[in-house]
């Protein structure tokens, strides 16, 4: 019951936040200078034609009308029509969404898969050279700009060694093999940077556990150092790590945007950059809304996950 009520409260807050965010985004878009009609018609357009196009696209109607129309449309996945191409925005987003979702969706579990052993080892061996080395490496990895790392990876693995394609994308449906080959470098680059970031939190989390009484109890029960830390430290470390992962999502999306540029991937990030370039506000607005929604939604899920991991939040206290 307590869980349900807590979850319901979080859901309400989440939905409210999304609603306010949509208004903020809509208003921000209106403040953008650069006339989309002018841009669409290009260097040779006459002012009358531009005005005519503004009329056709309904850009001269009141703000409130346009906001509620947009909001209402989104409820059934209608993001309006692209001003520049005329086709529905959702048709432009759908193929792109997959690319970014793959990038982020693969990066999160993979970087955890790297970060946890990395952080565990460097916490356990923190007084030895090997542990310090891992810690130092994670500091270096964290400090390197992701796009620089991506360009270097492409140079080494595609151009010099010719093991992998340098850039570009093929969808999974077209060719799973090509898709996988072309995802290795971008995902790998993101994973390196992300895991270095997360490893520091994992390390801190495990070091905290090492000085906890329950870890001593576990050791006194007959757990070896490593297995005891994994068995009794993981879940406790995870409570704080999950929060960090949630907060990292937005920076991971930024990383994905940069990586899409480096590896020429047709994801949401490049769609955003492109649409701002053509002042296709309907698309920009939709992509920004989608990204913000994704971050808020993932943080909402993290909240729920937190309820699941930490029993103290799940059940009311009796003691």
């Amino acid at each position, binding site marked *: 019951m307590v869980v349900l009520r807590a979850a319901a409260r979080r859901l309400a807050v989440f939905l409210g936040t999304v609603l306010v965010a949509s208004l903020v985004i809509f208003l921000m878009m209106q403040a953008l*200078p*650069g*006339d989309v009609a*002018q*841009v*669409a*018609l*290009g*260097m*040779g*357009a*006459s002012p009358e*034609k531009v005005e*005519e*196009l503004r009329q056709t696209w309904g850009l001269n109607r009141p703000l409130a009308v346009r906001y509620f129309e947009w909001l209402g449309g989104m409820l059934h996945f209608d993001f309006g029509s692209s001003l*520049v*191409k*005329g*086709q529905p925005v959702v048709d*432009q987003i759908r*193929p*792109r969404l997959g690319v970014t979702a793959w990038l982020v969706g693969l990066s999160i579990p993979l970087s955890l898969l790297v970060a946890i052993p990395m952080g565990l080892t460097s916490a356990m061996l923190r007084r030895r050279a090997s542990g310090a080395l891992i810690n130092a490496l994670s500091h270096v990895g964290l400090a390197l700009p992701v796009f620089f790392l991506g*360009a270097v990876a*492409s*140079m080494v693995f*595609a*151009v010099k060694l*010719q*093991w*992998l*394609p*340098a*850039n*570009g*994308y093929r969808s999974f449906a077209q*060719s*799973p*093999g*090509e898709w*996988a*080959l072309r995802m*290795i470098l971008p995902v790998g680059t993101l994973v390196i940077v992300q895991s270095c970031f997360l490893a520091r939190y994992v390390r801190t989390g495990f070091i905290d556990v090492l000085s906890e009484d329950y870890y001593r109890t576990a050791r006194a029960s007959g757990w070896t150092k490593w297995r005891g830390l994994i068995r009794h430290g993981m879940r406790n470390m995870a409570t704080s790590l999950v929060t960090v992962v949630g907060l990292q999502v937005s920076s991971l999306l930024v990383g994905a945007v940069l990586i899409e*540029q*480096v*590896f*020429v*991937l*047709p*994801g949401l990030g*490049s*769609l955003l950059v*492109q649409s*701002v*370039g*053509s*002042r*296709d506000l309907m698309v920009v607005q939709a992509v920004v809304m989608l990204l913000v929604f994704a971050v808020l939604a993932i943080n909402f899920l993290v909240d729920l996950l937190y309820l699941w991991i930490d029993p103290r939040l799940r059940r009311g206290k009796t003691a």
Partner: protein
Amino acid sequence: MSVRSGVILGLVLGLSGIFSACVPSPDSVRELSIGITVEPTTLDLTTDSAAAIPQMLLYNVYETLVKLDSQGAIHPLLASRYEVSADSLTYSFSLDHKAKFASGTPVDADCVVASIDRIRQSPNKTLQSQMAVIESVEAPSADLVVVTLKEPSNFWLYSMTGVAGIVFDPASDDLAMKPQGSGPYQFDSWTSGDRLTLAKNESYWGTPGRFENVVFRFIPDPNAMVAAMLSGDLDIAGEMTSPDSLSLFSDESKFTVIEGTTNGEVVLGFNHSRENMKNLAVRQAICHGIDRAALVNTVWGGKGELIGTMTVPTDPYYEDLSDTYSFDPEKAKQLLAEAGVSDLSLSLRIPTLPYGPKAATFIASQLGDIGITVTVEELDFPRWLEEVYRDGNYDMTIVAHVEARDIVNFANREYYWKYDNPEFQAQIALADRSTPQDFVPQMQIAARMLADDAAANWLFVFPNLIVAREGITGIGHNMTTLSFDVTTISSKD
């Protein structure tokens, strides 16, 4: 995909068996993949003037009545022949009776008339002005089109080799997403942000295309273009925007490097409505203050010819005027001093296209040496269009004017340079109306006028820099039109 990369994949995913089954078969050489830098936002070239649209579609998907070859000569295409009346006012195009669209519809005179009307009604001002000279278009028979002009025009037929002359399939209802034409390739698919694919038109009326598919990949980042080419992912890097990296492709057993010319003049444009820029001495000082030879070397790897006015070597009326204002900083300072100009501070607002920031940094540095403070501002293209191009809010700007014979823009005082020289305007009008024999000398007079008046500083001719994989032949040396013409390209293997 190489065997080796298959192995790597297997190691990484532990699924080599499944995936190596998906390795594309060797007949993928029937696909020609070309890297280009700019992706258009729409494919409708009647509304959008982005050069990337005709780059992919002109001559490959769309055909025109007459075509310009890589040397700048006009040849018949959909018209098997054409005749011009003695007074230069009437053009009669006889259509090739074999010609048909990819959809199977024959190309008849009605389609041509409809297409010309479509262009005349375009919201695009450039297209409008190119077609403004037309008095009437008629189709006396199914294979004859007669166009009558209001007055003789040397520019008109030339325009008809480009976008203005495209004959659209009457069935096409969505130019933005589904272009339909009569070329050897037809539009297949467009994956936004990634690629545009053309497929062979199996029922092409002329010499068929040599590839099953032609893929244009959009690669804006110069390093990514180099990487894709070096790693063997591309057959052709269609535009090298990092000319310095051409040296990486010097291995002739692997690559062919093409260094031709284009119609693009990289112009340091002056805003003639600004007090400072109205001053001839200031303009001349700027021209003297910039070492254009060094600029080309620095900014564009030494590729690109020097010019002194708004003409390119492939123009019939081209004359080398590149030393009208030689690099002479002392003279520049003297000119400024004599004109009583000191503490000159100018804005240089440029679009963020590959050459812009580099050239601007170079120019700001050199003009600094003659005592002009230059503030560089990089604008994304829409902003540039709005603030510089439309509103004329700038002192100087740099942009490559890629359209053919665009010298006429200096005769338009509304154009963003705000260059208002009645003498020049009269001279251009005279040249357009004159007989084909007089056209060239009259144009040369106009071009010299611009050069002497330092109406702008023409930095260099944008070179046509292409890298192709060994075995790819038939790429046009010069880019005289906006088209990246793949109809002549073939592959040895």
